[in-house]
């Protein structure tokens, strides 16, 4: 099936070359980071995780969101999702690939990454995160590739793939729960020490992931003959609306607990994010942008007229996507480190090489996605 990705229009190849160019610049900057050290980034002793881990955390959510298609389609036989489910599974493959790469570029000693397997340490949440991420990647590659292959031959998928599909449902929940546990189990990081961290992660994931998927389905519809269907898009938009409403609700719970209790440790990171602390206001404009976009997107999605209008819908989805990206990326990761354990503020801004490496990883993800979607669309067009 992969050969379908080797034939394409001129536009397709220009797109591939464009991605390769961004990847090349990213790789160049990664080699600089490899020789100089992570000091090439904006990270420091106080803010020891930054843009890379922020992207990782956000993308785990995007990956997990495939389950929002798998549950209705495979568990409830909601046939409307029949055509789009493969796009969700391949999006998960691309997202997990990026997650793994973001962890990799964040390592100080990447050549020793196999130590995690050579010295398995079950008391470390990171060990489990590795297992669930690799497992989820494998599940989605196998499930997506097998069902697509069956579709090409116009036969039902083999029986052995069904249990894997059912397994992928709790597995999707697990990847985001375990990722939340990376943060939620640490003493002394008040922004992260919250029992609803995993719940928040899942709700924001089920908002951001399907939002991105709808946007991708719309792009696919434009550049190919493959249409996921208006009804599928509308059903997904409702899922985004519900998930985003729950996500915003969960966030407001955090705000209440922190500010009504008045406990300084809980208040300070949120104060830094939304109002600034000790004269440092680096993230304030971003956080308020996220607030405005979250409520705007939510309003446009809840109001039926705007949700059903496919000229407005993309804006609502972009708003939700960007809002969750800011909140769960930089807001969550950097906010967790500020103030530091000495209640001092050390600001963090990503550097140019850091941004280039990030873009490079995203470009690899988009390249994987492009190739997988090209194959999927090729099969769909052939069968149709």
């Amino acid at each position, binding site marked *: 099936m992969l050969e379908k990705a080797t034939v394409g229009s001129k536009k397709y190849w220009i797109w591939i070359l464009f991605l390769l160019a961004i990847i090349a610049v990213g790789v160049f900057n990664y080699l600089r980071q490899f020789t100089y050290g992570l000091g090439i980034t904006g990270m420091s002793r106080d803010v020891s995780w930054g843009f890379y881990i922020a992207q990782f955390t956000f993308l785990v959510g995007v990956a997990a969101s495939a389950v929002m298609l798998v549950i209705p389609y495979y568990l409830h036989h909601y046939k409307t999702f029949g055509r789009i489910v493969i796009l969700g599974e391949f999006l998960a493959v691309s997202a997990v690939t990026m997650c793994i790469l973001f962890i990799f570029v964040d*390592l*100080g000693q990447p050549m020793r990454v196999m130590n995690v397997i050579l010295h398995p340490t079950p008391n470390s949440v990171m060990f489990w995160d590795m297992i669930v991420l690799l497992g989820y990647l494998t599940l989605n590659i196998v499930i997506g590739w097998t069902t697509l292959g069956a579709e090409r031959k116009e036969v039902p998928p083999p029986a052995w793939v069904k249990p894997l599909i059912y397994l992928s449902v709790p597995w999707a929940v697990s990847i985001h729960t375990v990722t939340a546990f990376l943060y939620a189990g*640490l003493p*002394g990081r008040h922004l992260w020490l919250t029992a609803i961290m995993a719940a928040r992660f899942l709700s924001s994931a089920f908002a951001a992931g399907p939002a991105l998927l709808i946007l991708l389905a719309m792009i696919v519809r434009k550049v190919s003959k493959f249409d996921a269907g208006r009804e599928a898009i509308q059903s997904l938009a409702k899922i985004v609306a519900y998930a985003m409403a729950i996500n915003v609700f969960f966030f407001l719970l955090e705000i209440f607990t922190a500010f009504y209790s008045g406990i300084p440790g809980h208040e300070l990171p949120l104060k830094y994010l939304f109002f600034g602390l000790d004269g440092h206001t680096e993230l304030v404009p971003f956080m308020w942008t996220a607030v405005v976009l979250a409520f705007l997107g939510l309003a446009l999605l809840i109001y039926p007229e705007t949700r059903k209008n496919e000229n407005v819908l993309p804006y609502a989805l972009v708003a939700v996507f960007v809002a969750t990206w800011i909140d769960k990326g930089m807001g969550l990761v950097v906010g967790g480190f500020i103030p530091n354990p000495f209640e001092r503020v050390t600001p963090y801004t990503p550097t140019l090489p850091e941004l280039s490496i990030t873009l490079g990883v995203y470009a690899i993800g988009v390249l994987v996605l492009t190739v997988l979607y090209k194959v999927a669309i090729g099969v769909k067009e052939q069968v149709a």
Partner: protein
Amino acid sequence: MSINRRQFIKIAGFSTILGIGGITAIDKMKAGADETSAVQQIFGTPTPLTAKRWGMVVDLSKFKSAEDYQKCIDACDQAHNVPLFPNKKDEVKWIWTDTFEHTFPGAENELLPEAIKEKNYLLLCNHCQNPPCVRVCPTKATFKRKSDGIVMMDQHRCIGCRFCMAACPFGARSFNWRDPKPFIKQENPEYPARGIGVVEKCTFCAERLVRGLKPACVEKSNGGLIFGDLEDPNSEVRQILAKNYSIRRKPELGTQPSVYYLIGGIENA
């Protein structure tokens, strides 16, 4: 007591035959008047300092000026090749000072005596009994030594994920953001210098303890830092802690730090 190699082997061999192991041999020698010199004679090396759980008491009455602290800090930096970076973003530190509100956040109050508020306090790895850094490390590169409770770092195994830095509530850990070697004032060939991309921190001078020496900072502290076995009721640290009011950093987190602070000092307690 004088004991030569032959005698040692005799005692050790005999007790092994009896099935009671080398411990008896050591005990026999300990029974002698000068145990240190005995073991030194046998092994040609000094007796390692041992404890069930090492701990430290910081007696703040002994630290009168910034120089008193600086002596300890310099001794540590020198002993462990701790680099001094011009840019704070690259900072690596094992032992340092800060004011009361930043050393004990949450414990400060506005009405504290100015002297206490403005005084500097010494900070270092707490060698927690229940260390979160060890719990999160995915490779066991950082681990709590069973023999004496020291939280150690294996810089050859560390993958540089910095999970431990996120987990440590005391900000005790540093990362080598760039090559430290050009920024080491005077390299100590007896201690390894680190490369890029690994985490490091205070190890209670494990390399000195094994040579029978107390930690470098303790040696230069003029009695301000008392080092000893927290599990031994007769140790100096336990005697001091039994008689004086002490506090620890962030005790509410349950990590059980092994570094105790006597804010008023021994005399004033």
